[in-house]
């Protein structure tokens, strides 16, 4: 991992060789560009789109891509371009929410486990093991199966799937930090735990957490699109890219544009996050 020196603090993390490696990584630029583009599209979708995503025109149903409708129209005559652009908002949101939730919850659990050890640690880690005993999509399906289909439940499901990663990660960082002599010394000298946490544990944890989160957003977007595709995520008439793919299925093989563009959007978005995540990971781990 990153250099471990006494008082490895925030400033060091920021200006470390890791950041320089990151900047040199080709994937970093492409990935960042894609993610940035996504954020911009999500923010400015109404301005970018030619018409509202819900505007119907029954006389122009299922038209293939043309100059005036670059992505074609769907079965209600709505602009696929507009719907794909607006879909970015929902995708970004449903990608960020579960990861943010899992990050907060998981890190807290990991912190508690690593710090207090003993019974709490054993119980928490066993619980994490149980969650990890399920294949991820299956666990998500189990949660949705319990709570019922719906976008909120889908977000909760993905968050639950992700929690163990962060818990384990933070826990191992905490355990590692405990072993460090300087930390033990500081404790012996009476330094308060909270301060120790912040100055020594957090900087070491930030890197892997950021990597995990970035890749996690990509996974979350993919997973939620999948759940929506199965009809278990967003419920009509709300629509996201996954739902658009599910509906477009009915019009195969004729109206292929209904499936091509939403799928392209998902792929590109996830690719962006994966590129970014990979670049971050490679930057933090010089051996690759």
């Amino acid at each position, binding site marked *: 991992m990153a250099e471990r020196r006494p008082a490895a603090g925030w400033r060091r993390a920021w200006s470390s060789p890791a950041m320089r490696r990151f900047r040199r990584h080709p994937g970093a630029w492409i990935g960042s560009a894609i993610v940035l583009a996504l954020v911009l599209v999500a923010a400015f979708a109404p301005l970018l789109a030619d018409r509202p995503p819900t505007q119907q025109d029954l006389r122009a149903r299922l038209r293939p891509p043309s100059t005036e409708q670059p992505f074609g129209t769907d079965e209600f005559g709505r602009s696929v371009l507009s719907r794909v652009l607006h879909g970015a908002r929902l995708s970004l949101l449903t990608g960020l929410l579960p990861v943010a939730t899992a990050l907060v919850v998981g890190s807290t659990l990991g912190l508690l486990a690593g710090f207090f050890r003993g019974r709490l640690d054993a119980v928490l880690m066993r619980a994490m093991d149980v969650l990890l005993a399920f*294949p991820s999509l299956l666990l998500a399906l189990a949660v949705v199966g*319990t709570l019922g289909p719906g976008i909120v439940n889908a977000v909760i499901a993905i968050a639950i799937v992700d929690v163990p990663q962060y818990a384990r990660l933070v826990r191992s960082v905490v355990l590692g930090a405990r072993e460090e002599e300087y930390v033990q010394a500081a404790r012996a000298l009476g330094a308060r735990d909270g301060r120790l946490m912040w100055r020594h544990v957090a900087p070491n944890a930030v890197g892997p957490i950021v990597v995990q989160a970035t890749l996690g957003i990509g996974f979350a977007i993919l997973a939620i699109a999948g759940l929506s595709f199965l009809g278990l995520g967003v419920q009509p008439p709300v629509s996201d890219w996954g739902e658009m793919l599910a509906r477009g299925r009915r019009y195969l*093989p004729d109206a292929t544009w209904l499936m091509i563009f939403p*799928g392209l959007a998902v792929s590109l978005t996830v690719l962006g996050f994966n590129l970014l995540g990979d670049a971050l990971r490679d930057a933090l781990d010089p051996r690759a």
Partner: protein
Amino acid sequence: MLRYALGRLIGTVPVLFGVTLLVFLMAWVTPGDPVVAMLGEASQGISRQALEDLRRELGLDRPLPVQYLDYVAGLLRGDLGDSVRSRRPVLSEIRDRLPATIELALAALAIAVALGVALGVLAAVRKRTWVDGAAIAVALLGVSVPVFWSGFLLMIVFALELGWLPASGRGTWRHLVLPAVTVGVSSAAFIARITRGAVLEALAQDYVRTARAKGLAPRRVVLRHALRNALLPIVTVVGLQLGGLLGGAVLTETVFAWPGVGRLLVDAIVARDLPLVQGSVLVVSLLFILVNLTVDLSYAAINPKVRYG
């Protein structure tokens, strides 16, 4: 070895306990009354008194731990309850669909391992050349593209446009091709990434450099030394993939109308058929745990170092 195996087996017990507990609790976390959830539509005409009586009869008014033990006892007997929709035992429903899922999982795994390991090794050996770059790019695409999209693309091209293969369903070996390739390629991407990383790491080890210095031909070095040590993460991820594939490759099964357990689960969720959902989740996770355990033990049997690690 035996002690290691025993240790692992015992270690699995709390996990099994946790899994069955979670599945059991599903009935209680679900919004609404568990009795209603169990009966489904049939519960509509029934009076409150009758529901109360039913609850007592089924023992649902007893303390939770007792009910849980009862549930586990039922599991050991092979009783997973009855499907609300079809009224058939859950186990039968799953048993009907399991062969299809296993067939798809094995076919996809074969493709995934062959493709993934080859690609990963190639990339690692040719590091920093265009081959590596291309391989990374391909693998990256593989994990970014949603399986239900690539499946449709393949279906459009090979089944609908060219007509070489059937579009959906299960029957001849031809029906297996598209679903297996779809899921196999996606899985291969994951395996390739891990393989590349593992092989690179193994190649960077000191003993490898020593072997190289001794003048052994590079290929021998790779195949004999590096690969053997890279095997652990590779085998681990293969095991995980197999588990995931058994998870029903839900999305692919839906795309190609493949009659497997994955689709069974989704249909059950949509129909709010709780016993079937519980049963499917339980069976698949048990399979997953079993697969991972087998993978761990086989690996430990091959490579003694792991046992004492």
